[in-house]
Structures are given as C-alpha cells and as structure tokens.
C-alpha cells in the first residue's frame, strides 16, 4: 500500500508547480515580523504619502460637516427624494456602506471557522474597514430624521408615558437591532484580536504617553499561556457569534425592500442576493485599500499573491451569485406573466434610467468575469481597477433597485423622475472622507497586520496555528 510514495525525481519537480504559494515570504522570523509591522505604526516617520491622503480625506470629511450643518438648519428638503421616489441617495448609500462592512465579518468569522489560514494577515485590516463602514452607514438613518438628537426616541423601542412604540412588523426597526448588534460584535471582535499586538506595541514604545495609552488598551496582556488560552476561547466564541451576523444584517436590509409590494422590490431572492452583493462589494473595498497599502509599505511578503488571488476568487464567486440574482429577477418577471412585474423589468432596462441598469451589468457582471483568468487575478493593477468597478457597480445596483422600482409605479399619472441634489453628493463624498480618515488613522496608530497571527503561520509554527 506504499504506492502513494512512488514519486520519481521528475514527478516531484513537476509537482512543485502545483504547490500553493507561501502565505508569508520565506526568510521571515518572529522578530522580523514584529519589526516590520511595528514600524508601520508610530515608530517611524510618517510617510509623505500618508499626510497627503490624510489631508484630502480630512477635507472631504469637512464636507460632511457642512452637509450636516446645512441639513440641520434647513431640513431634509435639501435632499433629492420626493414623490414618487421617496427613498433616494440616503438609503442607497446606507445600504452601500453596510454592505462593504460584510467582508470584514466574513474574513474574521467565517474564514476562521473554515480554518482558512490565508485570512491571517488581512483580517485586522478588513475588520477595521467594517467598523469605519458601519460608522459611515449610521450617518444616514441618524440624519435622515432631521433632528438627530431625537432619533434615539424614534428608533429604539422603550416603555414611555405615551405608550408609543415603533411598528415591530416593520423591517426598519429590525434594521436598528441588526445594525447595532453588528456594530457591537464587530467592535469586540476587532478589539479582542488587537490585544496581543497592543501588548507588543506597549513593550516597544519609547514615548511615555504612547506607552501608557498602549498599556491601558492592552489590558495587562502578559503573553502567558493562560492569557493565550482565554484569548483563543474568546476569539472563537466571538467568531461563532459573528457568523450569523454575516447573513442576518444584509438579510434584514433586503427585507426593507422585499416585504413591500413594489414590483422590483418584492422578490423572494432578495435575502441571499443582498448578502452575496454585500460580500462582493466588501471584498472589492478590501482590495482597493490593501493593494495601495501593500505597495506603499512594501508588504508584499506578508500580503502575498496568494492572499490577493484568493480575495479575487471570493469576489468572482460572489459576483456570480449576484449575477444569478439579476438573471432570476428578469426570468421570473417574464415567467410570472404578471403585467406589472414585466413592465418594471422592461422599464428598468429600457426606460429613462436604462443607462444605470446597463452600466450596472457592465460593472458587476461583465468586468468581474475577467477574473476567471489567473493572469487577471494576479495582476494587482487590473485587480484594483476591477475592484473600483465593483464598488461603483454595487452602488448602481442599489440605485437601480431603489429608483427604477419607484419612479414609475402602477399609475402613470404619478410617474416622476429622481435627481440627487448637491447636498446628497456632498454628504456621500463626506462619508467617503470620514471612512478614509478613520482608515488612515488606524494604519498609523495600530498594527494593520496582526503580528501574532502572522507568526502563527510562519513555517515551523504549524502546531500553534489557530484551530
């Protein structure tokens, strides 16, 4: 029964072409990983490129401040939504941001449970991205109320003297629970994962203030076996808790539309199709951030081609699920024999907003399908471009779903046209600035690559790899 070991010299050299690429470039030791990643934080001079992008991001975030002030003084009449399109850029952008966060949760939780070791150098980054994206998303439900200081009373159910409750049958109240749970668990997950690395930074810090701050944040981490044992348990439990959240959050977001009666919204495929779209957009954003950071900080040895290619594969797979969703919508609209369903579909693709539908197909279906080829998956410049297209495509998807389902409803007399205002765009750009600012601060002050977890996948550390 030893025939399996019969490989001759020629076949073993042939086999080397099938060996997976390493997850960490050869030559790294525990010390070199610590050196390399700690240097990205406060230990070295701030790169000029960082300052430049930070100033741009801060400027854009300032635009958010202006947009918010305008909104508070004038009211939400500054925004574009109006009869018959009562939902516009506010919810489009909310759904877009929430969706982007999903890659972080998927990488940290599901890939951990599936024992995918390639998650280990990109997870911290993706988790931080989740938090920043959720924060950007939250601006919309908060400020669309017009009086955000009262939002708490309107959004959360609590016993009150007037016996007023939100409508528990409305998915909008489910959203409040889904998103706040999601935000909380993501924060915990990210922070717990950071603790060992914060301990390392505390020990290395020269600046006394930094030492105290990192020391407080590391919660007395001493790297003892007991600490590691508790840490691993907590991490695994949080992964278990986060896993259903990957599905639940965007499922509830999809219910915002699908439980209604509007053709184009009322489709049973919405939950899985929204979840796949969220992961799709999220991975595109991770690539859009990881590729430049990898280049600026010369991280090719810890974010290797294998990471990049695997992310491209996840993007292709989720993109195909999304494409399946588009196809099912068209097929069922036709198969249903329902006049309004079929009218909506024809109007979506051939009406005044038809351009948005075809642009969406180009961005989300045509271009990502180039990723079937290994050459496309391993060319970082092309991959960066594809990811940009996916980001735009997923934004267009929400635009198409929301606007083209609403602007021509059952009664031709009430048809209208939606146009976003300058304030809509300023608000959106502003959230983009907020997102970038937060990510840049994160990269500067905290280890963007988890040192402790990269060490676990160094050669010779197999036994300690996270199970």
């Amino acid at each position, binding site marked *: 029964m030893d025939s399996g070991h019969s490989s001759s010299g020629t076949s073993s050299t042939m086999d080397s072409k099938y060996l997976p690429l390493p997850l960490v470039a050869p030559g790294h030791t525990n010390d070199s990983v610590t050196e390399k990643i700690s240097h990205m934080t406060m230990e070295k001079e701030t790169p000029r490129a960082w300052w430049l992008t930070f100033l741009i991001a801060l400027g854009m975030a300032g635009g958010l401040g202006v947009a918010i002030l305008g909104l508070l003084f004038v009211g939400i009449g500054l925004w574009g939504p109006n009869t018959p399109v009562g939902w516009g850029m506010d919810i489009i952008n909310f759904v877009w941001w929430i969706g982007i966060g999903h890659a972080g949760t998927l990488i940290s939780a599901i890939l951990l449970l599936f024992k995918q070791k390639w998650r280990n150098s990109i997870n911290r980054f993706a988790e931080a991205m989740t938090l920043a994206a959720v924060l950007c998303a939250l601006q919309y439900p908060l400020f669309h109320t017009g009086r955000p200081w009262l939002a708490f009373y309107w959004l959360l159910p609590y016993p009150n003297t007037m016996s007023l409750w939100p409508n528990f049958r409305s998915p909008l109240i489910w959203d409040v629970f889904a998103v706040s749970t999601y935000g909380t668990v993501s924060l915990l997950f990210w922070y717990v994962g950071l603790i060992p690395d914060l301990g390392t930074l505390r020990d290395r810090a020269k600046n006394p203030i930094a030492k105290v701050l990192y020391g407080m944040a590391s919660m007395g981490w001493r790297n003892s076996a007991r600490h590691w044992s508790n840490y691993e348990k907590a991490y695994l439990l949080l992964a278990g808790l986060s896993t259903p959240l990957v599905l639940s959050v965007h499922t509830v977001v999809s219910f915002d539309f699908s*439980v209604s009666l509007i053709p184009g919204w009322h489709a049973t495929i919405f939950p899985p199709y929204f979840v796949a779209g969220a992961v799709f957009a999220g991975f595109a954003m991770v690539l859009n951030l990881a590729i430049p950071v990898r280049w600026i900080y010369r991280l090719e040895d810890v974010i290797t081609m294998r990471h990049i290619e695997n992310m491209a594969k996840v993007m292709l797979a989720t993109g195909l699920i999304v494409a399946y969703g588009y196809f099912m919508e068209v097929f069922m609209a036709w198969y249903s024999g329902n006049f309004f369903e079929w009218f909506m579909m024809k109007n979506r693709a051939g009406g005044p907003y038809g351009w948005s539908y075809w642009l969406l197909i180009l961005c989300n279906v045509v271009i990502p399908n180039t990723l079937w080829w290994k050459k496309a998956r391993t060319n970082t410049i092309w991959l960066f471009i594809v990811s940009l297209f996916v980001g735009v495509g997923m934004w267009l998807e929400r635009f198409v779903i929301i606007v083209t389902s609403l602007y021509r409803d059952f009664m031709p007399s009430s048809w209208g046209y939606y146009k976003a205002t300058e304030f809509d765009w300023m608000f959106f750009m502003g959230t983009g600035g907020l997102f970038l600012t937060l990510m840049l601060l994160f990269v500067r002050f905290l280890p963007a690559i988890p040192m402790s977890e990269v060490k676990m996948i160094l050669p010779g550390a197999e036994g300690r790899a996270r199970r």
Partner: protein
Amino acid sequence: MSAHPSHEEPVAAATASTAPVPVVSLRRIAGLVALAASAAALTGFSNPQQLVQSYLPAFLLWFGVSIGCLSMLMIQHQSGGHWGILLRRLFEAGARTIYFMPLFFLPILFGMAYLYPWADPVRIAGDHHLAEVVHKKGAYLNVPFFTARAVLYFAFWAFMARTLTAFSWKYDETGDREYAEKMRRMSGWGLLAQALVITFAGVDWGMSLDPHWYSTIWGILFMVGQALSAWCLCIMVVSRLYTHAPLNRVATSTLFHDLGKFLFAFVMLWGYVNLSQFLIIWSGNLPEETSWYLDRSRNGWRTLTFVLVGLHFFLPFLTLLSAGLKKNASRLAVVAGLLFSLRFVDLFWNVAPNFKHEHFSVHPFDLLMPVAVGGAWLYLFARQLERAPLLVKHDPQVHEMEELAAHAH
C-alpha cells in the same frame, strides 16, 4: 492518455471483490427492497393518477441525492479540505446514478397530465383562469419544450458526472496532478452551469405544479435541499464504512466533527431560505403568491408545516449544537437519518398540496414510492461504489490525513 479514445470509460482499479462488506450488503438489501416495493406498486395501475402523484416527491428526493452529490463533488474540488477526500468516492458514485435517472423520469413524462395542470387540455378547457395563465406562459410551459429541456438537463448532468469520474480514475491510475487541476477547473464553470440547470429543473418539475405561482428564490431552495439530502445520505453511508479498509486509514473523529458542522450549516441554510421565502410572501400578502402558503396552512396541512419547522429545523439545530454528538459517527448518522426522512416530508409538503389542497391525506402509495425508488437508487449507488476503491490514491491530502489518523489512534 492519447492511447485511450475519449469516449471509452477508463477501467477503475478495483473489482467488486475488494468492496467493503457493508457496500455489498447494501446492494443486496436495496435490490430486494426495490423489487418487493415495485411489485407492491404494480397494484396501483388501476389508479395511474395516484401512482404518478405519489411518485413525483419520491423521484424529486432520490434524483435530488444524485444531483446533490454532483454539486458537492464540484464544491469539494474547488474548496479542497479533508472532508472532500473522505467523501469523494461517495459523491462520485452518487453522481453517476444520474445515468439511470432519465429512466426514472419516464413515469413523470408519461403522467404529465396528472401532475401539471398546464399539460392537461381537459382541465384547461374547464378553467378559464388556468387557460389565461397557460396562454401567457405557453411559450415556456408546453410539452415539447418541457421534454427538450429535460433532455438537456440530463445530458449536462451525465456529462459532468462521467467526465469528473473519468478524470478521477485516470488520476488514480497515473498519479498525474494535471488531472486534479482538470477536475478543479471543470468544477468552476460546472458549478455555475449546475446552478442554472438546477434552477430550471426546479421550476419545471416543482414550481410549475401550480402554474400561477412564482418565487425567485425557488432555485436556491432546490439547491440547498439537494445538497442537504446528499450530505445526510453520505454521512449515513460513511458512518458504516469508516471502520473498514480503506477509509479506516484516514477517518478520525475530527473529520466527523467537520461533517457534523457542515450538516448544521446546511440545516441553517435550509431554514434561512425557507424563512426568507415565507416571510416575504406572507408580508406581501398578494393573492397570486400567498395562496401557495394558504394551501399549506389549512385543511390539515398546517400540522405538517409545524412538523417540518420542528423536526427539519429545530430538532437537528439543537442536537447538532453538541460537539460530542458531531464527533460520534453513529450518533451523527442517527440525526442525518432523521433529517433524510424529513427531506422527503419537505418535498411531499411542497408537491402534494397541489393535488389535494382540499384536505390533508396520505395514500399508501405516498409512503411506498420513496421506498421503491430509494431501493432502486441505493442498489445502483452500491453498484457504482463497487466500481472504484473508496479512497483516492494520489491526492497529497491523503498522506496528511493518514498521518493525522495515525496520531489520533
């Protein structure tokens, strides 16, 4: 490679004599059951309508196992993982039973008028609502196109099952990694095509039972159900085989733990997809959609609905939370067996209310048919299992698994 003409199936390395005992007894028992149950079904020829209507859910269950095996085979080629090595030969054998499924499809083809209102001219003539729908959907729902589509589906499935197995056997024979790459590449586009084919087959054979009704998630419902059926069956079979050579070289409790986790995930997914469909349709409350759920929530069908929610979701969900149970092959097989029988209940619940929405009833044939089809299916499955060794020979993961198993013992 060029010495073999491509239309000739490569010969597998094993002969029937090397198959483990449980496979041989499965073949014998299943064959006898199939014969006995088919003989009993012969009494039903005086009532062909009942016969065909009882046959459809049984067909959908067992044909679904074949298709689920094919899907899982492609998924494991793409994803990798030790579970894929443990179950690969089971998936391949299950997928190859698809060669015989066109025969199993014949009763449906010949009994179409009893099953699908749109294929019954008498009913169309007497019901103007139906006539209107058939007029609207006639381009899709007509007998020649329906038949042509079925031919296309079976051709695709047979091609995939045959080619993937041929590569796998060639890999055993030659040890050339190129075959592993071929299987992986083929599974990539194969899964995409598989999703579309399952969706259309699901619409044709399941959804069009009620020509008024439609639901965009239906295809995914079918995919998840089939994967779950195949997974349950493979757990039951492997729980009997893992103590015998050759699987005893690689089987560990960790592997069964993984199989249990996947089972848990599939149960959750089944619940998720069904809840999504229900919640959206219930909330919309449109007459053309909600009638489907109304049929299943009254006249006795309601009880069956709750049985499904309780036994197809909550019971396996709660029992599979236990790590100890998942690591224990025989206990895991009990849960898988229960779920497998519930797979039939689910398909019966999907199909039968279309025929008898006035009141809930179970005809003896409803219970006989899954046994008859199942006996025949399992007989074919066992015969396919005997055609190749149960463990692949050259995959690098086999050696990892053997080492892990040696440490575990």
